[in-house]
């Protein structure tokens, strides 16, 4: 139980910067120093726009993609995720958080010497589906998992 939760949750949201979406992210985005960074994809506010800007067409949910993550986040500011693809010729793995202000969080382009397994840690504003998006032979596949962000306390 945590009575100061609403306040602290706000604090957390402020801390992670995921609250206050009325503020346009674009206003505060830096000048892009690197042409390679896909600004349009990272700025996109809907899944459809993310997919469009990444050139993703009709991704299919696949059991060959595994998204490993805790069901409940221990800390919304640090949520470990791991994606493993069993699909041959996997060349790219991305992580998307549906309910974050901008959904695309990380995209990994894998060279031929890589195993199709990557892990990182994400910030999540609230309980949300997280998507692992895999590209193999030009086609896209997904695995989706709901990760719960909770107030905590009260257990046991």
């Amino acid at each position, binding site marked *: 139980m945590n009575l100061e939760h609403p306040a602290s949750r706000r604090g957390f949201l402020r801390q992670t*910067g995921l*609250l206050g979406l009325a503020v346009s*992210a674009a206003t*505060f985005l830096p000048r892009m120093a690197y042409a390679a960074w896909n600004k349009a994809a990272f700025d996109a506010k809907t899944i459809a726009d993310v997919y469009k800007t990444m050139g993703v067409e009709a991704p299919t949910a696949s059991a060959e993609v595994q998204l490993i993550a805790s069901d409940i986040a221990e800390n919304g500011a640090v949520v470990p995720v791991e994606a493993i693809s069993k699909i041959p010729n996997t060349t790219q793995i991305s992580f998307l958080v549906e309910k974050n202000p901008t959904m695309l969080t990380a*995209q990994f382009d*894998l060279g031929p010497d890589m*195993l199709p397994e*990557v892990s*990182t840690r994400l910030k999540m504003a609230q309980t949300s589906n997280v998507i692992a998006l895999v590209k193999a032979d030009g086609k896209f596949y997904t695995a989706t998992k709901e990760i719960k962000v909770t107030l905590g306390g009260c257990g046991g």
Partner: protein
Amino acid sequence: MGNPMKIRAASKDGVTEVKVLMNHVMETGLRKDPAGELIPALFITEVTAKLNDKVVMQAQWGQAVAKNPYLGFKIKGGQPGDKVSISWKDSSGDSRSDEAPVS
């Protein structure tokens, strides 16, 4: 330049497992300081991983990668004595590279 990364690279059964902890604020640009002013965005946008001198992976990141980012991946091949190097660039143009031997 930022602070050094921690890199661990271990070879086992023909696979090199790499774990990296970077040191970076990963500011989203949406957070306010105690005075109520927005803190400007500052986050890593690009990451490159090499085994010896060969690029094995390139990544693009957004604001929602967690502070002091973690990166884990596996390379086919690699053996003790090889070198793994990681470099990042952030949204301000700052960059950093670190390397570690494969154990």
